[in-house]
């Protein structure tokens, strides 16, 4: 019989009305006894009350407050550093945040689609994917696995220039430039911990933009790291699979 997978959930909360949503979303994971790390934005009204409520709903969880730097990416980097600081162990991370993307046309369905990975019926399938193939590094909603355009030996999208620099700096050479848009996915812990053991997540976080940056009009370090979080894993000869 397979042992129960050790899970750590890193959940970033930005919006003041996310408490019920978070509790509902995490309910299906409770049988797996995950380690829960929450990051609430320091600017979120009612953060203290939300933190108290989370600790009541999920005893033993950890809550940190960090500034709105690098949006959910900056928060996830802070939580990764916190996780490493605690010297806890996990087989898989689940990265989540209370995405709303109010500026986008598809905002209403975006979050729901991304959350397919924690629908009760899908959780067992996720672990099956990981267990069946050691090279399976990330499991995400298939519609949000997209490929960053790469033409004539360089990235050609809006974040292209930054991506060229970053993959060089961090020595990332994935076989394909697929990544999970929206940064909500299951990921094998080992490659992330190995990478962030070499490159301190807080040092990377320093470089991210402050506030609610978007990459609709120009490239951002934050959105570039959205891609790199996937490529850290796929550079280890692993692949992304969709459900």
């Amino acid at each position, binding site marked *: 019989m397979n042992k129960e997978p050790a899970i750590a959930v890193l959940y970033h909360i930005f919006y*003041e009305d996310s408490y019920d949503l978070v509790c509902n979303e995490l309910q299906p994971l409770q049988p797996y006894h995950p380690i829960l790390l929450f990051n*609430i934005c320091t*600017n*979120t*009204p*009612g*953060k*203290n009350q939300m*933190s108290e409520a989370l600790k009541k709903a999920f005893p*033993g969880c*950890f*809550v*940190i*407050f*960090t*500034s*709105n*730097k690098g949006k959910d990416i*900056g928060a996830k980097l*802070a939580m990764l*550093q*916190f996780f490493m*600081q*605690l*010297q806890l162990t996990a087989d898989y991370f689940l990265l989540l945040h209370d995405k709303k993307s*109010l*500026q*986008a*046309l598809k905002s209403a369905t975006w979050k729901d689609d991304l959350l397919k990975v924690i629908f009760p019926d899908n959780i067992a399938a996720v672990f099956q994917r990981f267990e069946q193939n050691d090279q399976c590094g990330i499991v995400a909603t298939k519609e949000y696995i997209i490929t960053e355009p790469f033409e004539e030996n360089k990235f050609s999208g809006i974040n292209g220039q930054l991506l060229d620099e970053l993959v060089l700096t961090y020595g990332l050479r994935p076989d394909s430039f697929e990544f999970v848009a929206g940064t909500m996915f299951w990921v094998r812990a080992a490659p992330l911990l190995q990478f962030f053991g070499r490159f*301190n997540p*807080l040092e990377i*976080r*320093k470089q991210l933009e*402050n506030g*609610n940056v*978007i990459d*609709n*009009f120009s490239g951002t370090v934050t959105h570039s790291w959205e891609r790199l979080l996937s490529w850290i894993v796929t550079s280890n000869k692993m692949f992304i699979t969709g459900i």
Partner: protein
Amino acid sequence: MGEAVKLDSNFQQNVYNGHIMQVPVNPYYTISARLLLQNTGSIPEMAPAIRINILLNIPKVQFPDLFLILGTIKNNFLISLPAGVVSDQQLLVSILPECYLLSSLDNFSLAAGNILPIIAEEALLPGNKNTDLIQNYFLEQGTRPWQFPNFSLQQTVPQQTANCSFNVFCPVSNNEDIETIFPDATIIAFAAGIADITAFNKYTALVKTYTSPDFFSTTFIEKKLHEEELQNWQQRALLYRSFLSLSKSVQQKEYYDVLDWYKKEYEALPLWYKRFGHIIKVLMGKRSFRSLFNDKFKKNTD
């Protein structure tokens, strides 16, 4: 000056200019991280209402244990750095991520502002330039500016800087009256004599006996929290307004992107090709045959 009260005969008092100090209200009680780690079993006995000031006098390898403790207790806390650590640039830089993450824990107290006291065993030191390293690191992580008040464990007179004061209790034998000196003082330290947390609990309980009603402190903290909350709501209102205006430009761009794609992928095709495409649609059942000749008929089938 507050109303004088008698100290318990078992309590070791400190003397300031012939008077015994009134203990400040709702203060942070200084406790060394080393002592905390040596007494993990006693930590649950600490009343959740006690606020603590952790003196980070442990090596880097012991920080994970400290995180596990502080991440799970209910007590609000501050962190302080020993002056020796701050003056050792290499050591200080190595623990900056730990200091930042400790200050990010939800029970880290910002009631008195962003304060990270530097505490020396000996006489007061002048400002340490290495505090710039801490300041810059924290600012780069997106925090508001911090203050680094210097205090000494040897000085038994009240030590005060902006937003923060520090009182050290030293053992003396006689009983005296006490009077209010700093009703809004924030940090208390015991110079010596505490071997474990049980003793710490006893002293803090005794100190609390002699504190003024928490009125000033409570209102001060509540006011601070209320102001912060108000500011957060104001920022949030501005954010939602910016989303409204941003969504217009973003959706406009998305609309023109789609239109542009349509023009390049479909509109550029020759007319005969497009017409042929409509016949294929009819053959596939995606369009009614009669709509090819009369606009009155429903064009597309669902």
